[in-house]
């Protein structure tokens, strides 16, 4: 797989879409058939290792999927190199910040 071949992003987009789809189906099933969960119950579940791992996986898939999408939009529409780099840099920084923030929340709950 070439670094700038385009296939990496193509595969990543589809794999993360599958993860998001599985989560969406799971969440829909839980909402439709499960008993309502209180905020405390939700926080307690998120603090368990399994809950934290599932949320981390969801966040990672969501952020990577968003990155490929934003990157594609920028590659399509934004042709001046400087503006393109600035937008891609801003998107990467924003998504990275969101990822770190999610990690921080999960770690602080686990401690």
């Amino acid at each position, binding site marked *: 797989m070439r670094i700038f*071949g385009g*296939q990496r992003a193509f595969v990543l987009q589809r794999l993360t879409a599958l993860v998001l789809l599985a989560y969406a189906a799971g969440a829909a099933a839980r909402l439709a058939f499960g008993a309502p969960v209180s905020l405390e119950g939700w926080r307690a579940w998120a603090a368990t290792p399994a809950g934290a791992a599932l949320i981390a996986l969801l966040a990672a898939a969501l952020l990577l999927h968003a990155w490929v999408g934003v990157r594609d939009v920028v*590659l399509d529409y934004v042709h001046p190199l400087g503006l393109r780099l600035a937008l891609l840099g801003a998107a990467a920084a924003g998504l990275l910040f969101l990822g770190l923030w999610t990690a921080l929340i999960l770690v602080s709950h686990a401690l």
Partner: protein
Amino acid sequence: MRFKVYRFDPESRAKPAFRDYDVRLQPADRKVLDALVRIKEQDDSLSFRRSCREGVCGSDAMNINGRNALACITDLAGLREPVVLAPLPGFPVIRDLVVDMSTFFRHYHEIRPYLVNDEPPPERERLQSPEERERLNGLYECILCACCSGFCPSYWWNPDKFVGPAGLLQAERFIADSRDRATAGRLAFLDDVYRLYRCRTIMNCTEVCPKGLSPARAIEHIKVQLLRRSS
């Protein structure tokens, strides 16, 4: 029958505009190309390409009521009036309905649209099994009219870098050919963020192909083969 035809004269300072025509059709006039010939009789300044007038040469591809098609095989019956005729979207207009297809054909040449095989040729011909020949069906029939590329948003955005549905369909035609020996090189050339992966499977190409081909499916085949090679 009423028509609105896109007019642009590069030698005048006037901006492109649609001009209305009211055409008295003859009983034998059945296709959009027939109407264009009648319009040309009224106004000989109108420019458009046409040649075979039977859907084989692909010269008269244009946008007819918002959809790319060949004028020579598009029935007048059933078209909403006024029939709006415009050049292929996304292509630079040379004059009226005539577009500049140099970039389109540059992409076509880049995919090496010919068999590459350095092995000594057999005495008569390079044979294929019926199954190998079958794989070329749905690929070799492309007439390069550019209806597909001119209806592809990804091609509109990056016409200079994205090979486009027509070029990629032609690439798959040679990748799928059992007599060709350059598959690895062809796939390596296409494995590029622009040349192949600008395709979003929008499928406008398949929707408008006047020959009923599916460039979208051909592009998926290329992506699958690239995936198999890298795994």
